[in-house]
Protein backbone atom coordinates (compact mmCIF):
# COMPACT_ATOMS: atom_id res chain seq x y z
CA UNK A 1 0.00 0.00 0.00
CA UNK A 2 2.31 2.80 1.22
CA UNK A 3 6.04 2.32 0.79
CA UNK A 4 8.45 4.87 2.18
CA UNK A 5 11.94 3.67 1.25
CA UNK A 6 15.22 5.01 2.60
CA UNK A 7 14.07 8.58 2.80
CA UNK A 8 16.49 11.36 3.80
CA UNK A 9 15.59 14.97 4.45
CA UNK A 10 17.89 17.74 5.67
CA UNK A 11 16.65 21.26 6.34
CA UNK A 12 18.93 24.26 5.72
CA UNK A 13 21.84 22.11 4.54
CA UNK A 14 25.27 23.66 4.89
CA UNK A 15 24.15 26.34 7.33
CA UNK A 16 24.44 26.76 11.07
CA UNK A 17 20.78 25.73 11.47
CA UNK A 18 21.25 22.51 9.48
CA UNK A 19 18.87 19.83 10.71
CA UNK A 20 18.96 16.25 9.51
CA UNK A 21 15.28 15.54 10.09
CA UNK A 22 14.99 12.17 8.40
CA UNK A 23 17.83 9.68 8.18
CA UNK A 24 17.17 6.58 6.15
CA UNK A 25 13.54 6.29 7.14
CA UNK A 26 11.63 3.32 5.76
CA UNK A 27 8.03 2.40 6.47
CA UNK A 28 5.73 -0.06 4.72
CA UNK A 29 2.00 -0.09 5.33
CA UNK A 30 -0.37 -2.91 4.46
CA UNK A 31 -3.89 -2.03 3.29
CA UNK A 32 -6.07 -1.31 6.32
CA UNK A 33 -3.15 -0.68 8.66
CA UNK A 34 -3.90 1.85 11.38
CA UNK A 35 -0.49 2.97 12.60
CA UNK A 36 0.05 5.24 15.57
CA UNK A 37 3.31 7.18 15.59
CA UNK A 38 5.07 8.53 18.67
CA UNK A 39 8.42 10.14 19.27
CA UNK A 40 10.03 13.04 21.08
CA UNK A 41 10.36 16.58 19.81
CA UNK A 42 12.49 16.68 16.69
CA UNK A 43 12.27 12.93 16.17
CA UNK A 44 10.98 13.52 12.63
CA UNK A 45 7.29 12.68 13.03
CA UNK A 46 5.91 15.71 11.26
CA UNK A 47 8.72 15.68 8.71
CA UNK A 48 7.76 12.11 7.84
CA UNK A 49 4.12 13.11 7.47
CA UNK A 50 4.96 16.17 5.38
CA UNK A 51 7.25 14.17 3.10
CA UNK A 52 4.43 11.73 2.44
CA UNK A 53 1.90 14.42 1.57
CA UNK A 54 4.39 16.51 -0.38
CA UNK A 55 4.71 19.72 1.64
CA UNK A 56 8.32 19.46 0.47
CA UNK A 57 10.26 16.97 -1.64
CA UNK A 58 12.66 14.53 0.02
CA UNK A 59 16.42 14.62 -0.64
CA UNK A 60 16.80 10.91 -1.24
CA UNK A 61 14.65 7.80 -1.25
CA UNK A 62 11.23 7.06 -2.71
CA UNK A 63 7.58 7.11 -1.74
CA UNK A 64 4.98 4.96 -3.49
CA UNK A 65 1.28 4.52 -2.92
CA UNK A 66 -0.37 1.42 -4.42
CA UNK A 67 2.59 1.00 -6.74
CA UNK A 68 2.45 4.61 -7.99
CA UNK A 69 5.70 6.48 -7.43
CA UNK A 70 4.72 9.86 -5.98
CA UNK A 71 8.20 10.91 -4.84
CA UNK A 72 8.31 13.89 -7.20
CA UNK A 73 4.61 14.78 -7.24
CA UNK A 74 3.52 18.20 -5.97
CA UNK A 75 1.34 18.36 -2.87
CA UNK A 76 -1.98 19.04 -4.59
CA UNK A 77 -1.55 16.05 -6.90
CA UNK A 78 -0.91 13.68 -4.00
CA UNK A 79 -4.10 14.94 -2.39
CA UNK A 80 -5.94 12.71 -4.86
CA UNK A 81 -4.77 9.76 -2.75
CA UNK A 82 -4.25 11.31 0.65
CA UNK A 83 -6.70 12.72 3.19
CA UNK A 84 -5.17 14.92 5.85
CA UNK A 85 -6.01 16.44 9.21
CA UNK A 86 -3.57 19.02 10.55
CA UNK A 87 -2.61 19.76 14.13
CA UNK A 88 -3.91 23.33 13.85
CA UNK A 89 -7.73 23.21 13.68
CA UNK A 90 -7.63 26.37 11.53
CA UNK A 91 -5.59 24.69 8.77
CA UNK A 92 -7.99 22.11 7.41
CA UNK A 93 -11.03 24.25 6.64
CA UNK A 94 -11.76 27.56 4.88
CA UNK A 95 -13.09 29.79 7.68
CA UNK A 96 -14.82 32.32 5.43
CA UNK A 97 -16.83 29.68 3.58
CA UNK A 98 -19.91 27.75 4.64
CA UNK A 99 -19.71 24.23 6.06
CA UNK A 100 -21.55 23.06 2.96
CA UNK A 101 -19.02 24.74 0.63
CA UNK A 102 -16.12 23.20 2.53
CA UNK A 103 -17.65 19.73 2.34
CA UNK A 104 -18.43 20.16 -1.37
CA UNK A 105 -14.79 21.04 -2.09
CA UNK A 106 -13.61 17.99 -0.14
CA UNK A 107 -16.10 15.72 -1.89
CA UNK A 108 -14.34 16.33 -5.22
CA UNK A 109 -10.79 16.08 -3.91
CA UNK A 110 -9.92 13.31 -6.35
CA UNK A 111 -11.04 15.07 -9.54
CA UNK A 112 -10.52 18.36 -11.36
CA UNK A 113 -12.94 21.20 -10.61
CA UNK A 114 -15.32 22.16 -13.43
CA UNK A 115 -17.76 24.95 -14.24
CA UNK A 116 -20.54 23.00 -12.53
CA UNK A 117 -22.21 24.67 -9.54
CA UNK A 118 -19.98 24.19 -6.51
CA UNK A 119 -22.52 23.31 -3.85
CA UNK A 120 -25.62 21.89 -5.53
CA UNK A 121 -28.60 21.13 -3.32
CA UNK A 122 -28.51 17.48 -4.37
CA UNK A 123 -25.57 16.78 -2.03
CA UNK A 124 -27.22 18.34 0.96
CA UNK A 125 -28.93 15.24 2.33
CA UNK A 126 -25.68 13.30 2.22
CA UNK A 127 -23.78 16.11 3.96
CA UNK A 128 -26.45 16.36 6.62
CA UNK A 129 -26.24 12.64 7.39
CA UNK A 130 -22.47 12.77 7.61
CA UNK A 131 -22.58 15.75 9.96
CA UNK A 132 -25.23 14.04 12.07
CA UNK A 133 -22.94 11.04 12.48
CA UNK A 134 -20.47 13.32 14.30
CA UNK A 135 -23.03 13.90 17.04
CA UNK A 136 -22.04 17.56 17.39
CA UNK A 137 -25.32 19.10 16.26
CA UNK A 138 -23.82 20.45 13.04
CA UNK A 139 -26.40 18.83 10.73
CA UNK A 140 -28.60 21.93 10.74
CA UNK A 141 -25.78 24.39 10.29
CA UNK A 142 -24.81 23.65 6.68
CA UNK A 143 -24.92 27.34 5.80
CA UNK A 144 -22.90 28.52 8.79
CA UNK A 145 -19.44 29.88 8.10
CA UNK A 146 -16.83 27.42 9.36
CA UNK A 147 -15.13 30.30 11.19
CA UNK A 148 -18.02 30.29 13.65
CA UNK A 149 -17.28 26.73 14.81
CA UNK A 150 -15.16 25.74 17.79
CA UNK A 151 -11.75 24.13 17.32
CA UNK A 152 -13.13 20.68 18.07
CA UNK A 153 -16.02 21.11 15.67
CA UNK A 154 -13.66 22.32 12.96
CA UNK A 155 -11.38 19.36 13.53
CA UNK A 156 -14.33 16.97 13.27
CA UNK A 157 -15.45 18.63 10.04
CA UNK A 158 -11.89 18.39 8.70
CA UNK A 159 -11.92 14.70 9.55
CA UNK A 160 -15.12 14.28 7.52
CA UNK A 161 -13.57 16.21 4.67
CA UNK A 162 -10.37 14.17 4.71
CA UNK A 163 -12.27 10.88 4.54
CA UNK A 164 -15.08 11.92 2.19
CA UNK A 165 -13.54 11.21 -1.20
CA UNK A 166 -12.27 7.75 -0.18
CA UNK A 167 -8.58 8.40 0.50
CA UNK A 168 -6.08 5.61 -0.10
CA UNK A 169 -4.22 6.95 2.90
CA UNK A 170 -5.35 9.05 5.87
CA UNK A 171 -2.75 11.18 7.65
CA UNK A 172 -3.52 12.59 11.10
CA UNK A 173 -0.85 14.91 12.44
CA UNK A 174 -1.47 15.31 16.20
CA UNK A 175 -4.96 16.36 15.22
CA UNK A 176 -6.24 16.43 18.81
CA UNK A 177 -3.22 18.15 20.36
CA UNK A 178 -4.69 21.65 20.19
CA UNK A 179 -8.04 20.64 21.74
CA UNK A 180 -9.14 20.51 25.37
CA UNK A 181 -9.09 16.97 26.85
CA UNK A 182 -12.82 16.37 26.59
CA UNK A 183 -13.06 17.56 23.00
CA UNK A 184 -9.88 15.68 22.15
CA UNK A 185 -11.44 12.45 23.44
CA UNK A 186 -14.57 13.05 21.37
CA UNK A 187 -12.60 13.76 18.18
CA UNK A 188 -10.47 10.69 18.84
CA UNK A 189 -13.59 8.57 19.23
CA UNK A 190 -14.96 9.88 15.93
CA UNK A 191 -11.59 9.18 14.34
CA UNK A 192 -11.54 5.62 15.59
CA UNK A 193 -15.10 5.02 14.38
CA UNK A 194 -14.44 6.30 10.88
CA UNK A 195 -11.10 4.55 10.47
CA UNK A 196 -12.15 1.15 11.78
CA UNK A 197 -15.59 1.13 10.14
CA UNK A 198 -14.20 1.93 6.73
CA UNK A 199 -10.88 0.09 7.20
CA UNK A 200 -8.92 3.16 6.08
CA UNK A 201 -5.15 2.86 5.89
CA UNK A 202 -4.13 5.47 8.43
CA UNK A 203 -1.09 7.04 10.04
CA UNK A 204 -1.80 8.95 13.24
CA UNK A 205 0.87 10.97 15.02
CA UNK A 206 0.16 11.49 18.69
CA UNK A 207 2.06 12.76 21.70
CA UNK A 208 -0.12 10.69 23.97
CA UNK A 209 1.38 7.24 24.63
CA UNK A 210 -1.86 5.86 25.98
CA UNK A 211 -3.76 6.87 22.84
CA UNK A 212 -0.99 5.40 20.74
CA UNK A 213 -1.37 2.08 22.57
CA UNK A 214 -5.17 2.08 22.66
CA UNK A 215 -5.78 2.85 19.00
CA UNK A 216 -4.74 1.11 15.83
CA UNK A 217 -3.18 -2.23 15.04
CA UNK A 218 0.42 -1.06 14.85
CA UNK A 219 2.69 1.34 16.72
CA UNK A 220 5.82 3.02 15.44
CA UNK A 221 8.28 5.08 17.44
CA UNK A 222 10.55 7.55 15.72
CA UNK A 223 13.86 8.69 17.12
CA UNK A 224 16.52 10.83 15.48
CA UNK A 225 14.97 10.65 12.04
CA UNK A 226 14.25 6.97 11.76
CA UNK A 227 12.07 4.22 13.18
CA UNK A 228 13.40 2.53 16.31
CA UNK A 229 10.31 0.62 17.44
CA UNK A 230 7.70 -1.02 15.23
CA UNK A 231 5.20 -3.37 16.91
CA UNK A 232 1.93 -4.76 15.61
CA UNK A 233 -0.91 -7.16 16.34
CA UNK A 234 -0.89 -9.15 19.59
CA UNK A 235 2.44 -7.76 20.68
CA UNK A 236 1.08 -4.22 20.50
CA UNK A 237 -2.15 -5.14 22.27
CA UNK A 238 -0.26 -6.36 25.33
CA UNK A 239 2.09 -3.40 25.43
CA UNK A 240 2.00 -0.90 28.32
CA UNK A 241 3.54 2.54 28.73
CA UNK A 242 6.41 1.24 30.96
CA UNK A 243 7.13 -1.48 28.37
CA UNK A 244 7.34 1.20 25.73
CA UNK A 245 9.76 3.28 27.79
CA UNK A 246 11.96 0.25 28.36
CA UNK A 247 11.95 -0.54 24.66
CA UNK A 248 12.92 3.03 23.90
CA UNK A 249 15.89 2.93 26.29
CA UNK A 250 17.09 -0.26 24.72
CA UNK A 251 16.70 0.97 21.16
CA UNK A 252 17.95 4.51 21.63
CA UNK A 253 20.63 3.67 24.15
CA UNK A 254 19.45 6.32 26.57
CA UNK A 255 16.54 7.28 28.77
CA UNK A 256 13.38 8.87 27.37
CA UNK A 257 13.60 12.55 28.18
CA UNK A 258 10.78 14.11 26.22
CA UNK A 259 8.62 15.74 28.90
CA UNK A 260 5.75 16.16 26.53
CA UNK A 261 5.63 12.46 25.79
CA UNK A 262 6.05 11.43 29.42
CA UNK A 263 3.64 13.85 31.03
CA UNK A 264 0.68 13.09 28.82
Amino acid at each position, binding site marked *: MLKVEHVFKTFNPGTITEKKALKDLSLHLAPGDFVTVIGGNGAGKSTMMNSICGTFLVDKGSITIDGVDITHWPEHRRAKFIGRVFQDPMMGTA*AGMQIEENLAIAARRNRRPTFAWSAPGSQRERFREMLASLGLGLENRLESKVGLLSGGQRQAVTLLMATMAEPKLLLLDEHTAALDPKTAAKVLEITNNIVTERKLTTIMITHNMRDALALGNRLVMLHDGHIIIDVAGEEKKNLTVPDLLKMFEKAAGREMTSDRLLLS
Partner: protein
Amino acid sequence: MNIVDLVVPTIAQGLLWSILALGVFLTYRVLDIADLTVEGSFPLGAAVAASMLTSGYDPYVSIVVAAFAGMLAGVVTGILTTKLKIPALLAGILTMIALYSVNLRIMGKANLSLLRVDTIFSLASFISDNRSMVALVVGLVAVALVVVANYWFFGTEIGAAIRATGNNPNMIRANGIDTDATVILGLLLSNALVAVSGALIGQDNGFADVGMGTGTIVIGLASVIVGEVLFGTRNFMNWLISVVLGSIAYRVVIAIVLQMGMPPNDLKLFTAVLVAIALVMPLIKKKLKADREVA
Protein backbone atom coordinates in the same frame (compact mmCIF):
# COMPACT_ATOMS: atom_id res chain seq x y z
CA MET B 1 -26.19 74.35 -11.06
CA ASN B 2 -28.96 71.88 -11.76
CA ILE B 3 -28.80 68.99 -9.31
CA VAL B 4 -29.46 66.45 -12.09
CA ASP B 5 -26.49 67.81 -14.01
CA LEU B 6 -24.37 66.91 -11.01
CA VAL B 7 -25.94 63.59 -10.01
CA VAL B 8 -26.07 61.83 -13.36
CA PRO B 9 -22.37 62.25 -14.29
CA THR B 10 -21.34 61.33 -10.74
CA ILE B 11 -23.28 58.06 -10.85
CA ALA B 12 -22.05 57.37 -14.37
CA GLN B 13 -18.45 57.84 -13.26
CA GLY B 14 -19.07 55.62 -10.24
CA LEU B 15 -20.43 52.84 -12.45
CA LEU B 16 -17.58 52.97 -14.97
CA TRP B 17 -15.00 52.99 -12.16
CA SER B 18 -16.82 50.24 -10.26
CA ILE B 19 -15.54 47.68 -12.78
CA LEU B 20 -12.04 48.59 -11.61
CA ALA B 21 -13.25 48.31 -8.01
CA LEU B 22 -14.60 44.82 -8.73
CA GLY B 23 -11.22 43.87 -10.17
CA VAL B 24 -9.49 45.14 -7.04
CA PHE B 25 -12.07 43.29 -4.94
CA LEU B 26 -11.14 40.00 -6.66
CA THR B 27 -7.51 40.29 -5.62
CA TYR B 28 -7.73 42.22 -2.36
CA ARG B 29 -10.68 40.35 -0.86
CA VAL B 30 -11.18 37.08 -2.74
CA LEU B 31 -7.52 36.15 -3.25
CA ASP B 32 -6.23 38.14 -0.27
CA ILE B 33 -3.46 39.74 -2.35
CA ALA B 34 -2.78 43.47 -2.75
CA ASP B 35 -2.13 43.58 -6.49
CA LEU B 36 -0.49 46.75 -7.81
CA THR B 37 -0.60 45.52 -11.42
CA VAL B 38 -3.84 47.52 -11.48
CA GLU B 39 -1.94 50.79 -11.91
CA GLY B 40 -0.48 49.43 -15.15
CA SER B 41 -3.38 47.37 -16.45
CA PHE B 42 -5.84 50.25 -16.14
CA PRO B 43 -3.96 52.51 -18.59
CA LEU B 44 -3.15 49.36 -20.58
CA GLY B 45 -6.87 48.84 -21.22
CA ALA B 46 -7.25 52.49 -22.20
CA ALA B 47 -4.16 52.40 -24.42
CA VAL B 48 -5.23 49.26 -26.26
CA ALA B 49 -8.75 50.55 -26.82
CA ALA B 50 -7.57 54.01 -27.87
CA SER B 51 -4.99 52.82 -30.35
CA MET B 52 -7.52 50.39 -31.84
CA LEU B 53 -10.18 53.07 -32.14
CA THR B 54 -7.81 55.50 -33.83
CA SER B 55 -6.94 52.70 -36.25
CA GLY B 56 -10.61 52.35 -37.08
CA TYR B 57 -11.57 49.22 -35.16
CA ASP B 58 -15.02 48.66 -33.70
CA PRO B 59 -15.41 50.04 -30.13
CA TYR B 60 -16.85 46.76 -28.83
CA VAL B 61 -13.94 44.79 -30.24
CA SER B 62 -11.53 47.28 -28.67
CA ILE B 63 -12.97 46.52 -25.23
CA VAL B 64 -12.69 42.76 -25.72
CA VAL B 65 -9.07 43.10 -26.83
CA ALA B 66 -8.39 45.41 -23.86
CA ALA B 67 -9.76 42.66 -21.60
CA PHE B 68 -7.36 40.13 -23.13
CA ALA B 69 -4.45 42.53 -22.69
CA GLY B 70 -5.41 42.90 -19.02
CA MET B 71 -5.52 39.11 -18.66
CA LEU B 72 -2.00 38.89 -20.03
CA ALA B 73 -0.79 41.47 -17.50
CA GLY B 74 -2.46 39.48 -14.71
CA VAL B 75 -0.84 36.25 -15.85
CA VAL B 76 2.60 37.91 -15.84
CA THR B 77 2.15 39.02 -12.23
CA GLY B 78 0.71 35.60 -11.41
CA ILE B 79 3.70 33.73 -12.79
CA LEU B 80 6.12 36.10 -11.06
CA THR B 81 4.49 35.50 -7.70
CA THR B 82 3.69 31.76 -7.93
CA LYS B 83 6.25 30.06 -10.14
CA LEU B 84 9.09 32.51 -9.45
CA LYS B 85 8.13 33.11 -5.78
CA ILE B 86 8.41 36.90 -5.90
CA PRO B 87 6.22 38.43 -3.15
CA ALA B 88 2.86 39.43 -4.65
CA LEU B 89 3.25 43.11 -3.84
CA LEU B 90 6.63 43.31 -5.56
CA ALA B 91 5.46 41.18 -8.50
CA GLY B 92 2.63 43.65 -9.07
CA ILE B 93 4.98 46.62 -8.91
CA LEU B 94 7.30 45.01 -11.47
CA THR B 95 4.48 44.38 -13.92
CA MET B 96 3.11 47.87 -13.33
CA ILE B 97 6.45 49.50 -14.15
CA ALA B 98 6.97 47.28 -17.18
CA LEU B 99 3.51 48.21 -18.43
CA TYR B 100 4.40 51.90 -18.41
CA SER B 101 6.81 51.25 -21.28
CA VAL B 102 4.44 48.80 -22.91
CA ASN B 103 1.63 51.36 -22.84
CA LEU B 104 3.85 54.01 -24.43
CA ARG B 105 4.70 51.53 -27.17
CA ILE B 106 1.08 50.67 -27.76
CA MET B 107 0.03 54.30 -28.09
CA GLY B 108 3.24 55.52 -29.73
CA LYS B 109 3.07 58.62 -27.53
CA ALA B 110 2.01 59.60 -24.04
CA ASN B 111 -1.52 60.71 -24.89
CA LEU B 112 -4.01 59.63 -27.54
CA SER B 113 -7.08 61.76 -28.25
CA LEU B 114 -10.36 60.06 -29.12
CA LEU B 115 -12.31 63.18 -29.97
CA ARG B 116 -12.67 62.45 -33.67
CA VAL B 117 -13.37 58.70 -33.54
CA ASP B 118 -16.37 56.56 -32.71
CA THR B 119 -16.44 55.23 -29.15
CA ILE B 120 -18.78 52.88 -27.36
CA PHE B 121 -20.52 55.99 -26.02
CA SER B 122 -20.96 57.67 -29.40
CA LEU B 123 -22.40 54.39 -30.72
CA ALA B 124 -24.90 54.44 -27.86
CA SER B 125 -25.80 58.12 -28.31
CA PHE B 126 -29.27 57.14 -29.56
CA ILE B 127 -30.16 56.58 -25.88
CA SER B 128 -30.19 60.23 -24.95
CA ASP B 129 -29.00 63.67 -26.02
CA ASN B 130 -27.34 64.00 -22.65
CA ARG B 131 -23.80 62.60 -22.83
CA SER B 132 -23.75 61.75 -19.13
CA MET B 133 -27.01 59.86 -19.39
CA VAL B 134 -25.52 57.75 -22.19
CA ALA B 135 -22.49 57.02 -20.01
CA LEU B 136 -24.77 56.07 -17.14
CA VAL B 137 -26.78 53.59 -19.21
CA VAL B 138 -23.68 52.06 -20.80
CA GLY B 139 -22.08 51.82 -17.36
CA LEU B 140 -25.16 50.22 -15.86
CA VAL B 141 -25.32 47.55 -18.58
CA ALA B 142 -21.60 46.82 -18.31
CA VAL B 143 -21.68 46.60 -14.52
CA ALA B 144 -24.76 44.35 -14.55
CA LEU B 145 -23.00 41.97 -16.94
CA VAL B 146 -19.82 41.94 -14.84
CA VAL B 147 -21.64 41.41 -11.53
CA VAL B 148 -23.80 38.56 -12.87
CA ALA B 149 -20.79 36.89 -14.54
CA ASN B 150 -18.77 37.13 -11.34
CA TYR B 151 -21.59 35.79 -9.22
CA TRP B 152 -21.98 32.83 -11.52
CA PHE B 153 -18.26 32.13 -11.85
CA PHE B 154 -17.46 32.26 -8.16
CA GLY B 155 -20.33 29.86 -7.48
CA THR B 156 -18.80 27.20 -9.74
CA GLU B 157 -16.32 24.56 -8.61
CA ILE B 158 -13.42 26.47 -10.16
CA GLY B 159 -14.59 29.75 -8.65
CA ALA B 160 -14.99 28.12 -5.23
CA ALA B 161 -11.40 26.85 -5.51
CA ILE B 162 -10.21 30.45 -6.05
CA ARG B 163 -12.23 31.70 -3.07
CA ALA B 164 -10.84 28.91 -0.91
CA THR B 165 -7.29 29.79 -2.04
CA GLY B 166 -7.69 33.28 -0.63
CA ASN B 167 -9.30 31.87 2.49
CA ASN B 168 -6.87 29.08 3.32
CA PRO B 169 -4.30 27.89 0.77
CA ASN B 170 -3.33 24.91 2.96
CA MET B 171 -6.88 23.64 2.97
CA ILE B 172 -7.37 23.88 -0.76
CA ARG B 173 -3.99 22.26 -1.55
CA ALA B 174 -4.90 19.38 0.76
CA ASN B 175 -8.04 19.07 -1.34
CA GLY B 176 -6.21 18.56 -4.60
CA ILE B 177 -6.14 22.09 -6.03
CA ASP B 178 -2.98 23.67 -7.45
CA THR B 179 -2.91 27.06 -5.73
CA ASP B 180 -0.46 28.41 -8.32
CA ALA B 181 -3.15 27.92 -10.93
CA THR B 182 -5.92 29.50 -8.86
CA VAL B 183 -3.79 32.55 -7.99
CA ILE B 184 -2.86 33.08 -11.66
CA LEU B 185 -6.49 32.65 -12.71
CA GLY B 186 -7.65 35.14 -10.07
CA LEU B 187 -5.09 37.74 -11.15
CA LEU B 188 -6.05 37.16 -14.78
CA LEU B 189 -9.72 37.86 -14.12
CA SER B 190 -9.01 40.83 -11.89
CA ASN B 191 -6.77 42.57 -14.40
CA ALA B 192 -9.16 41.83 -17.25
CA LEU B 193 -11.83 43.78 -15.35
CA VAL B 194 -9.39 46.58 -14.56
CA ALA B 195 -8.39 46.88 -18.23
CA VAL B 196 -12.03 46.94 -19.32
CA SER B 197 -12.64 49.71 -16.83
CA GLY B 198 -9.65 51.58 -18.26
CA ALA B 199 -10.96 51.12 -21.78
CA LEU B 200 -14.37 52.51 -20.77
CA ILE B 201 -13.00 55.44 -18.78
CA GLY B 202 -10.62 56.32 -21.63
CA GLN B 203 -13.47 56.39 -24.12
CA ASP B 204 -15.62 58.41 -21.75
CA ASN B 205 -12.84 60.95 -21.12
CA GLY B 206 -12.06 61.15 -24.82
CA PHE B 207 -8.40 60.26 -24.41
CA ALA B 208 -5.98 57.66 -23.13
CA ASP B 209 -3.01 58.85 -21.13
CA VAL B 210 0.00 56.87 -19.99
CA GLY B 211 -0.25 58.43 -16.53
CA MET B 212 -3.93 57.72 -15.94
CA GLY B 213 -3.16 54.67 -13.78
CA THR B 214 -1.61 56.62 -10.93
CA GLY B 215 -3.60 56.13 -7.76
CA THR B 216 -6.12 53.71 -9.28
CA ILE B 217 -5.32 51.00 -6.73
CA VAL B 218 -6.23 53.40 -3.95
CA ILE B 219 -9.44 54.40 -5.71
CA GLY B 220 -10.28 50.71 -6.04
CA LEU B 221 -9.52 50.01 -2.38
CA ALA B 222 -11.54 53.06 -1.30
CA SER B 223 -14.54 51.78 -3.26
CA VAL B 224 -14.23 48.26 -1.84
CA ILE B 225 -13.88 49.38 1.76
CA VAL B 226 -16.46 52.18 1.64
CA GLY B 227 -18.89 49.78 -0.03
CA GLU B 228 -18.35 47.09 2.59
CA VAL B 229 -18.81 49.50 5.48
CA LEU B 230 -21.92 51.17 4.07
CA PHE B 231 -23.68 48.31 2.30
CA GLY B 232 -22.54 45.08 3.96
CA THR B 233 -21.04 41.72 3.00
CA ARG B 234 -23.86 39.32 3.90
CA ASN B 235 -23.31 37.04 0.92
CA PHE B 236 -21.33 37.11 -2.30
CA MET B 237 -23.99 38.88 -4.38
CA ASN B 238 -24.49 41.46 -1.65
CA TRP B 239 -20.72 41.91 -1.48
CA LEU B 240 -20.37 42.49 -5.26
CA ILE B 241 -23.19 45.03 -5.25
CA SER B 242 -21.69 46.74 -2.19
CA VAL B 243 -18.44 47.24 -4.11
CA VAL B 244 -20.36 48.83 -7.02
CA LEU B 245 -22.30 51.08 -4.65
CA GLY B 246 -19.06 51.86 -2.83
CA SER B 247 -17.56 53.09 -6.07
CA ILE B 248 -20.56 55.34 -6.63
CA ALA B 249 -20.44 56.54 -3.02
CA TYR B 250 -16.76 57.38 -3.46
CA ARG B 251 -17.58 59.50 -6.54
CA VAL B 252 -20.38 61.24 -4.62
CA VAL B 253 -17.98 62.11 -1.81
CA ILE B 254 -15.45 63.44 -4.32
CA ALA B 255 -18.13 65.50 -6.08
CA ILE B 256 -19.24 66.97 -2.77
CA VAL B 257 -15.77 67.96 -1.57
CA LEU B 258 -14.98 69.47 -4.97
CA GLN B 259 -18.23 71.44 -4.86
CA MET B 260 -17.24 72.61 -1.40
CA GLY B 261 -14.15 74.12 -2.95
CA MET B 262 -11.36 71.61 -2.40
CA PRO B 263 -8.66 72.10 -5.07
CA PRO B 264 -8.68 69.11 -7.48
CA ASN B 265 -4.92 68.76 -6.98
CA ASP B 266 -5.56 67.63 -3.41
CA LEU B 267 -7.83 64.81 -4.52
CA LYS B 268 -5.26 62.03 -4.25
CA LEU B 269 -4.18 63.16 -0.79
CA PHE B 270 -7.82 63.19 0.23
CA THR B 271 -8.39 59.69 -1.17
CA ALA B 272 -5.31 58.30 0.56
CA VAL B 273 -6.44 59.73 3.90
CA LEU B 274 -9.94 58.35 3.32
CA VAL B 275 -8.60 54.85 2.64
CA ALA B 276 -6.21 55.02 5.60
CA ILE B 277 -9.10 55.94 7.90
CA ALA B 278 -11.27 53.17 6.48
CA LEU B 279 -8.45 50.64 6.94
CA VAL B 280 -7.92 51.48 10.63
CA MET B 281 -11.64 51.50 11.34
CA PRO B 282 -11.78 47.82 12.41
CA LEU B 283 -8.85 48.41 14.77
CA ILE B 284 -10.47 51.48 16.32
CA LYS B 285 -13.79 49.67 16.65
CA LYS B 286 -12.07 46.76 18.39
CA LYS B 287 -10.25 49.06 20.75
CA LEU B 288 -13.41 50.98 21.62
CA LYS B 289 -15.21 47.71 22.26
CA ALA B 290 -12.39 46.42 24.46
CA ASP B 291 -12.33 49.68 26.42
CA ARG B 292 -16.06 49.51 26.93
CA GLU B 293 -15.82 45.94 28.23
CA VAL B 294 -13.13 46.93 30.70
CA ALA B 295 -15.15 49.92 31.92
